[in-house]
C-alpha cells in the first residue's frame, strides 16, 4: 500500500460524563446529619443486632425494613483495613501516595471506606484509632468528612 504514514498523528481528546447521584431518603438523612450536625448516623437491625454504616433501608441479612431505625455512632473508630495508593492517574482525590482505609466507627458493625491522612503512609496499621475531620466547605456528599486522622 502506498499510503504515506507520516500523515498519521495523535489527537488528544476527552470525554465528559455529566452525572447526578441521588442519595435517596436514607442516604440524604446521613449526609445532612454529617453536614449540619457533624454527626454520623447509622441504622440498627435489632433482630440481627447489627448497626450499619452507611445506613441502608433494609437489613442485608434478614431484609427487615430499617426505615427510621436510626442510631448515632461515634466520629472516632478503628482501621480494619487499608491500601496505599502510590501511582498517579487523573481524577484521583489527591496526590499519591495516600491511604484509603476501612474505618469501623465506634458503635458500628460495618466499616466505611475513606481517605486517611496520617502523614507518612507507613504510619498506617490495622487497629489504629482514627477520628473524622469534617470539611469546612459544604459538599453535600461523603466528603462532608474530609478525611480521617490518627488519634494522638
Amino acid at each position, binding site marked *: *500500500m*502506498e*499510503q*504515506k*504514514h507520516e*500523515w*498519521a*498523528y*495523535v*489527537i*488528544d*481528546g*476527552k*470525554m*465528559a*460524563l*455529566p*452525572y*447526578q*447521584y*441521588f*442519595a*435517596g*431518603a436514607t*442516604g*440524604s*438523612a446521613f*449526609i*445532612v446529619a454529617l453536614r449540619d450536625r457533624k454527626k454520623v448516623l447509622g441504622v440498627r437491625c435489632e433482630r440481627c443486632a447489627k448497626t450499619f454504616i452507611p445506613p441502608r433501608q433494609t437489613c442485608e441479612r434478614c431484609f427487615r425494613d430499617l426505615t427510621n431505625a436510626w442510631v448515632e455512632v461515634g466520629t472516632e473508630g478503628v482501621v480494619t483495613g487499608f491500601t496505599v495508593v502510590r501511582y498517579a492517574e*487523573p*481524577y484521583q482525590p489527591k496526590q499519591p501516595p495516600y491511604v484509603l482505609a476501612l474505618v469501623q466507627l465506634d458503635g458500628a458493625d460495618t466499616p466505611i471506606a475513606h481517605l486517611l491522612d496520617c502523614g507518612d503512609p507507613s504510619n498506617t496499621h490495622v487497629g489504629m484509632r482514627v477520628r473524622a475531620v469534617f470539611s469546612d466547605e459544604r459538599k*453535600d*456528599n461523603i466528603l462532608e468528612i474530609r478525611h480521617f486522622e490518627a488519634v494522638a
Partner: protein
Amino acid sequence: MSNTAPPAQELTVSRQVLSVAQRFSTGPAMGRFLQELRDNRRIMANRCPQCGRHQLPPREVCAVCHVGATGWEELGPEGAVRDFDIVYYSSPDPLTGETRETPYVAVWVDLDRTCGDAPLWHLLHAPDLSKVRRGLRVRVVFAERRSGAMSDIEHFEIIE
C-alpha cells in the same frame, strides 16, 4: 397507615462532570484529511482505484472492493443538502459536557464532484429554519483557528 403526610425531608443530589482523557491515532487516511482541513482549507476524499467511488471521511481500504484507496481528490467546497435534522433536544458534547444551543441543524451534504455515496455530515448555519430543505445549495465555512479536527469546519452556510 397514618393520614398525616410525612414531614418534608431534604434530599441531596451529587452533581459532577467526569472528564476522561483519551488519545486517538488518526491513521494515515484520516490524518491527511484532517491536515488538509487545517493547513489548506480543503476537503479531500480518497478514491478507490477499482470502483472509482470516493470515501468521505476517507479510510485506507475501499469498503466495497477491499483494495487500497490511494487516490486523493478535493471535493466541494459547495454541495447540496441530501438530508437534515433540526435538533431541538441536544445531548451533551463529549468534549465539554455542555449541550449545544437549540434548535440547530445537522446536515448530510453531497459535495460537488463526489462519485458514489459519500455525503459529509456537519452543522448548517441556518438563521431561518424554514429555508432548510433537501437539495439546498450550501458552502463549507472553515474555522479561523484550526487544530486538525472536524471542528476545523465551522459549519456549512446557505448559498443565497
